[in-house]
């Protein structure tokens, strides 16, 4: 196996900058790998080979001429296919956008271009990011590189698989209720959902606007910090992005964690927790104790309501956001004699079953007579969930939980029961409701060899403490040095 594809983005960036490797050489190595393995893994909706090689040549020219280079100069990255890159197709894994070409760049893409990153392809997701397995993609299901009978997680399952299978050293995902952290956990990689407002969503397909965030997916914790350095920051084009200074996340990453207080929420360590997951988390706690961290039992008393609150809020917001797909300005149009039929048929035929189910649930929750009982009530319980975190963070610096109650399940295992699928997000969704940052890092394998992830949660805009703790754990373990055999 070519050594290049095993290298971290941080190493690749250094070697490209030092001219030990050329960007073209690196980009070609990942594309070659993708061509060999992706027919089996199916992480990509499209591999943008020509585009990537052009960008790589530009980077190499820049480096050769001694011009100023970016933090990710010449380094390939895979982009979840619900983020716009000008002139490249963007499907959101939906038939309704199957032939849509992005007319402009998302803000994160603009920032990545400035940093010199090379776009290697667009990755598969559950349609409109609604799902936990990529089984809701209108095109195909992505496979878990550690065992192709298992799901890669979702909705950013394509991005997670691409990094795990070494067809890209970095990827972007989006996370509304765990869509970065849960697939990262399933595929044995690092996935970060930044604080709400930390990264601009301009140019990402809106799903549930009070929850959506874009974030980094990577092999290592340093790579995650490197990528967040590039994409974070206020953007006047996203009115929910927040004008808080962006620190250099790499600067503090290696700091000692002695005396760090980590909370273990008792509501997350329940009887139903998978025994392999439990064992891995217990071992991780021991490693943290050795590094000098202190553990405190805490309570997040409204945890039990989080899934219900989440599905009311995300479906309500989705029903409003997806009203724009009407076959008028872009997207699929079913030709009919009158406009109303055209709306109903375009949407009825263009959207897949899970998207329609969520639009229906959201429309119902917002409809006259039910608004107060569902949407209004959910917003109030959301306040209580947020307060749970505020109270917890008075006592602790970080919260540690499993990323998911079980390792990645088998493809088809939960696809017939939407409620069971929703419950697999139980540990990741509170974070989005509370707006706090969260991260999944690999912490072991099940007996069957499927990766297990642990989740760290931090105070708003305190990604630094999270990175520090994640890095400390990574340095004490070898999980990030393991590669699937495909």
């Amino acid at each position: 196996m070519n050594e290049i594809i095993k290298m971290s983005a941080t190493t690749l960036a250094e070697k490209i900058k030092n001219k030990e490797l050329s960007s073209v050489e690196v980009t070609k190595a990942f594309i070659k790998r993708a061509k060999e393995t992706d027919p089996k893994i199916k992480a990509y909706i499209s591999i943008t080979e020509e585009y990537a090689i052009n960008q790589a040549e530009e980077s190499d020219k820049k480096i050769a001429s001694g011009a100023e280079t970016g933090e990710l100069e010449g380094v390939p990255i895979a982009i979840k296919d619900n983020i716009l890159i000008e002139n490249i197709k963007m499907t959101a894994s939906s038939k309704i956008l199957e032939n849509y070409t992005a007319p402009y760049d998302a803000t994160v893409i603009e920032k990545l271009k400035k940093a010199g990153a090379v776009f290697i392809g667009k990755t598969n997701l559950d349609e409109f990011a609604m799902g936990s397995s990529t089984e809701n993609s209108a095109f195909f299901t992505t496979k878990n590189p550690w065992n192709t009978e298992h799901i890669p997680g979702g909705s950013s399952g394509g991005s997670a698989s691409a990094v795990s299978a070494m067809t890209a050293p970095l990827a972007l995902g989006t996370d509304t209720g765990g869509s970065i952290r849960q697939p990262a956990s399933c595929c044995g990689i690092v996935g970060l959902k930044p604080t709400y407002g930390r990264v601009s969503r301009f140019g990402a397909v809106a799903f549930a606007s009070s929850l959506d965030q874009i974030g980094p997916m990577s092999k290592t914790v340093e790579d995650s910090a490197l990528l967040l350095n590039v994409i974070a920051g206020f953007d006047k084009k996203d009115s929910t992005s927040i004008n808080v200074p962006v620190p250099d996340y790499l600067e503090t990453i290696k700091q000692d964690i002695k005396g760090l207080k980590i909370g273990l929420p008792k509501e997350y360590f329940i009887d139903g927790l998978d025994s392999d997951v439990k064992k891995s988390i217990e071992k991780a706690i021991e490693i943290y104790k050795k590094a000098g961290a202190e553990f405190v039992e805490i309570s997040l008393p409204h945890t039990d309501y989080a899934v219900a609150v989440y599905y009311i809020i995300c479906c309500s917001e989705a029903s409003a956001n997806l009203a724009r797909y009407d076959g008028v300005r872009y997207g699929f149009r079913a030709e009919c004699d009158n406009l109303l039929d055209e709306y109903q048929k375009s949407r009825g035929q263009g959207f897949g079953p899970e998207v329609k189910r969520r639009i229906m649930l959201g429309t119902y929750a917002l409809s006259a007579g039910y608004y107060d009982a569902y949407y209004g009530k959910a917003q109030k319980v959301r306040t209580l969930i947020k307060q749970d975190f505020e109270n917890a963070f008075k006592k602790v610096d970080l919260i540690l939980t499993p990323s998911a109650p079980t390792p990645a399940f088998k493809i088809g295992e939960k696809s017939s029961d939407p409620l069971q699928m929703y419950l697999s997000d139980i540990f990741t969704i509170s974070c989005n409701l509370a707006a706090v940052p969260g991260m999944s890092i690999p912490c072991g394998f099940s007996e069957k060899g499927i990766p297990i992830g642990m989740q760290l949660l931090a105070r708003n805009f305190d990604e630094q403490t999270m990175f520090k703790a994640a890095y400390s754990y990574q340095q004490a373990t070898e999980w990030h040095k393991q590669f699937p055999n495909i």
Partner: protein
Amino acid sequence: MEISKKDVDYVASLARLEFNEKDKESLTQQLGSILNYIEKIKEVDTSKIEPTSHGASGENFWREDKVIKSSQKTIDAIFKNAPDKEADFFKVKKVMDTEEE
């Protein structure tokens, strides 16, 4: 929470979604069981609690009401995605029935 097929028809018309009969049946059952699960939030006493509409500070960010012109390149790229157009307009089916005019 009981959901009837009539409810599904009504919500589908609000959401501008067309379903076939088979899909309507499974939706009726699935929405019923999801709503049953969701009902549990009614246990929580929220009489003195303010709603949270999004996670950020809640401050509104104002900007000047100023038109920023897009480049012709962007405008052309936007129209390339249009299912039907005429000059720089999106073309749709007529909204009114001629007989009623």
